[in-house]
């Protein structure tokens, strides 16, 4: 659980919560937002900036009602879930005792994604939604296009979120035509490789907030719309002396608490109101499928290994170097060497399926055993998200089991070929 990471502890570069300095917004925008909100709900700066961005999008991009918001949160749960198996595959495929530094980097991101999964469920439960993680349509399949997850009419009631994302990218880059705008973020189950890391970088691409844009739509934009919706609906409810957050004590018992979730990914946030919902969502967007850290402060440095965004963490593997104090997104990592050995890896077939194992009944059985373990894990997560948070303990037991089963698969060649078997993360029964 350690690396030769830089030892200098550097102050957290991500913005803190309230109290915060006065926003440096254009006067007009500030006035517009201020008018739309009751004074009882002061917004942290990051929320104001996000709102400002979303207000620039067409009307259709706004969440209209609580139903839409819940749908978006269910989507968020699925997005967070979808990132986990690819990261796990990269991690599992490292041969024992090799690439320890890369393993630590991936692990550090993984535990945070797991926390995000839980946080998204906590927010959804807090607004009276029904999380679902163990039904086929809420189980990712690989390879898949992450953007497709966002691009669903039913979710926001808008024509196409993808289109909106493009609009957003354009507007954020001040009308300049972006080059290299992608329509897809292909995620798959790949062994640790340069290709896999490139995908991870794409998943975690920082989105600008009120700043310059790479021109590519990202998950960050999805979260902007979600957060804007949450803020708006709660503000509207608040104006009527109501709230979108449930007061039902049974519902409140659904929250996953820090007692249930432990480890290095951060603390589980119990969501009961707007303040705690912001805290949970902030944890997701600032660690995760990232926001550009600089939207809060200019010239911030990227020195602290533990606290830099996922994109920058993975970039360290790509560049073979750690960030150190004083580094910025422009300088790239300039710290200690991070040794990567791309060859010390089990040669897992990309996106394996049970079909790949059909000629070997024992291997197929092992593949199925893995899928069964994954299903068991999801069943426990579902239980944990819908009223029995203690079930998380059993889910963790399945996590351990999956790791050992994956290890066995990866050491088995598929037929006489060069490629090895690997975990499928498939829905049992889906395969014909």
């Amino acid at each position, binding site marked *: *659980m*350690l690396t030769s990471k830089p030892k200098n502890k550097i102050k957290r570069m991500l913005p803190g919560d309230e109290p915060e300095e006065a926003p440096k917004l254009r006067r007009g925008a500030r006035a517009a937002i201020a008018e739309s909100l009751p004074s009882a709900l002061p917004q942290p700066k990051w929320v104001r900036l996000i709102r400002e961005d979303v207000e620039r999008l067409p009307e259709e991009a706004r969440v209209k009602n609580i139903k839409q918001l819940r749908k978006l949160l269910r989507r968020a749960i699925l997005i967070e879930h979808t990132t986990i198996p690819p990261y796990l595959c990269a991690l599992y495929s490292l041969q024992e005792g090799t690439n320890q530094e890369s393993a630590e980097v991936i692990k550090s991101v993984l535990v945070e994604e797991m926390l995000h999964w839980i946080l998204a469920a906590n927010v959804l439960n807090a607004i009276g939604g029904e999380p679902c993680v163990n039904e086929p349509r809420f189980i990712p399949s690989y390879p898949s296009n992450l953007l497709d997850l966002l691009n669903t009419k039913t979710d926001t009631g808008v024509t196409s979120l993808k289109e909106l994302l493009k609009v957003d990218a354009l507007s954020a880059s001040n009308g300049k035509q972006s080059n290299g705008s992608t329509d897809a973020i292909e995620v798959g189950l790949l062994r640790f490789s340069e290709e896999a890391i490139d995908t991870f970088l794409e998943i975690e691409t920082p989105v600008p907030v009120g700043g310059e844009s790479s021109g590519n739509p990202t998950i960050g934009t999805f979260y902007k719309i979600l957060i804007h919706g949450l803020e708006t609906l709660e503000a509207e409810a608040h104006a009527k002396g109501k709230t979108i957050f449930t007061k039902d004590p049974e519902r409140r018992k659904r929250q996953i608490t*820090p*007692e*249930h979730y*432990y480890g*290095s990914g951060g603390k589980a946030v119990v969501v009961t109101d707007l303040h705690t919902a912001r805290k949970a969502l902030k944890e997701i967007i600032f660690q995760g499928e990232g926001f550009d850290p600089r939207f809060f402060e200019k010239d911030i440095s990227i020195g602290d290994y533990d606290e830099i965004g996922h994109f920058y963490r993975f970039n360290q593997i790509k560049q073979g170097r750690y960030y150190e104090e004083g580094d910025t997104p422009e300088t790239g990592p300039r710290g200690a060497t991070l040794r990567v050995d791309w060859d010390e890896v089990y040669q897992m077939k990309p996106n394996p399926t049970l079909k790949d194992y059909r000629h070997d009944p024992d291997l197929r059985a092992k593949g199925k055993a893995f899928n069964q373990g994954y299903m068991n894990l999801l069943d426990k997560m579902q239980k944990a998200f819908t009223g029995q948070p203690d079930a998380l303990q059993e889910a963790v037991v399945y996590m*351990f089991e999956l790791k050992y089963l994956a290890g066995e698969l990866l050491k088995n060649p598929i037929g006489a070929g060069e490629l090895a078997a690997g975990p499928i993360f498939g829905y049992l029964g889906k395969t014909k």
Partner: protein
Amino acid sequence: MTDKIYDVVIVGAGVAGAVLAKVLSGAGKSVLLLEAGKQAGIELEAVAAYANYQSYLNTFYTASAKVPNSPYPNLKTAPSPDVLALSNFDVQKPVIEQDDWPKKDDSKLRLNQGSYFVQKGNLPFGSDYARSPGGTMLHWLGTTLRMLPNDFRLKTTYGHGEDWPISYEDLKPYYEMAEREIGVSGAVDEQELPGIDSNFFGADYQYPMQKIPQSYLDGKFVEQAKGKTIKVNGVAYQLNVISTPQGRNSTPNKNYKFSAAQWDARQKKLKLVPGEESYQPVGSIWDPHTGQRCEGNASCVPICPVQAKYNPLKTIKSAVDKLKELSDNTTGGGKSSIGSIEIIAQAVASKIEIEPDGRIKEIKYKQYKNPDGSDYVLKTARGRIYALAAHSVENAKLLLASGACKGNDHVGRHLMDHTCGLAWGLMPKDIGGYRGPGSTSNIPTFRDGAFRKEHSAFIMPIDNWGWNWPALSPFSDFINAVNGQGTPQNEQLFGKKLRGYLGDRLSRQFNMHFEVEQMPDYNNRVTIHPRFTDALGNFRPVITYDLSDYSRAGFVAGRQITKEIFKLMSVEDATNYDPGNTSYFTYEVDGKEEGFVTNGAGHLAGTHRMGKSATDSVVNSRQQAWDHKNLYLVGCGSMVTIGTSNPSLTMTALAFSAAESILSDLS
């Protein structure tokens, strides 16, 4: 050599030394900690600490006999006892010439091959300890039981053993500090113990963490045994089975309210103060996020791979980190009031120098570079107060080597341990053994009661690791199965049959044991002799050990009860006490001699016991040597009796109490 005079010089970086160092430095004192073990073992910086611990782990993986000391280096310069050497113990075959051993019991002197101990008792002393930074609690099981009120007044209540100069109530606040420092997981409301009242824990007391989940086999056991009545020596007892409090990380208890112990200079008291934040489990020394929960490695003894189980290095690290934090946040003159801990490893204390007025002048220690060599540099450490916290045997050795505490001849005497009897058998069905911490439940019924007038008390832990302890399982089962020993038709098994046979047999293996209290016997002792020294010329312990009839009778009662329990639960009894075992002893049961095998518990205690008067004890109730005002003897050696509790928690409590006494002396 340094001329620095520390406030306190501590010998030994086990739990007693660690707690002393933490409390004293936290109260602004300068502390020197001398540690005999290797420098690598005390590295607290993440990368080095991790690397060293991994080397322990890899040594454990490849050790053919995974005995308690197997992961830790056994040094020529600071040797540790080896329980494997017990097998060489032969009552009939003394191997030492007696020319320079003038006592009349020379003929019993035995020097076991490969052993650090020289043994001369009727029975071999079967326990070990670890001379590595962190001490023997590197390989403790993790059981954290308080002693019971009657344990402190055994003589008065039952006419056996000795009374302590302090009561349970006196020690209680320090038990709470110990439970905070170790991080105990347990359920207070489940602790239905004999001979206690509602003040035992006090109103609304909680452990820092919720209980460690009890094992699946505990559940099976409870189903069948709890509430049942069994008869022992004509008396009927209702069996109770409870969860065992343990020093390993579990789910934090939201209702636990204390922060660390703090020194109140005005009242001259250590106090556990209410904390502002909820309790946070303490992870490994290399990564606070590792070991946040017990992960079920099922190897607590000898090593917890993730350090979810407490070890004293955590205390040392937290103390050092705290001092650094204080220093970083303090400017200018304020810094001088901050305490300090200096640690010198590979430094074996060899002699205490005593002034004519009885005060300790200095401690001489031998510092070595090569742990396999015999070279050293003799150095001196000076302090205002000295605390020996080197382990009961090592403390006694050092006192004897220095001619200290000569007011009576008690140094090294009253050596105690729990004598452990094992009982094992096959359950009718799969009980899912070999999983989880070594023991998660116990039968407390025989820890106290009127029977203590007749025989020793004992606790009966239910074990989770099959026949690992009694029969070297699963290794022995494997060897026997492939050799066709004990298999159906003595078939030499292989293939699917072998899998089926071992899977079934191992998953039904059940073991429980009884840890029998041993009295402080004057003749059970540690001593030294110039003939027996280690590579640095320091003394090796010469041990005389036997079991009194009172303990043997307790042992027999324990065995009887296990037989009753096995009947009750349809366990196929496989208990077998081998007369060839060097720890075999006999006792008359119903008019006929029966044989038993005792096992050491690793609970060494009592070599410098505390007492009310200077004539019958070595230290006073403050753990201060009667004969040397600036010398404290801290650890299990100060215990008067051992009760039925694993002594680690009591030792930790005593260390807090000693720290308070030392602070009050210094102020």
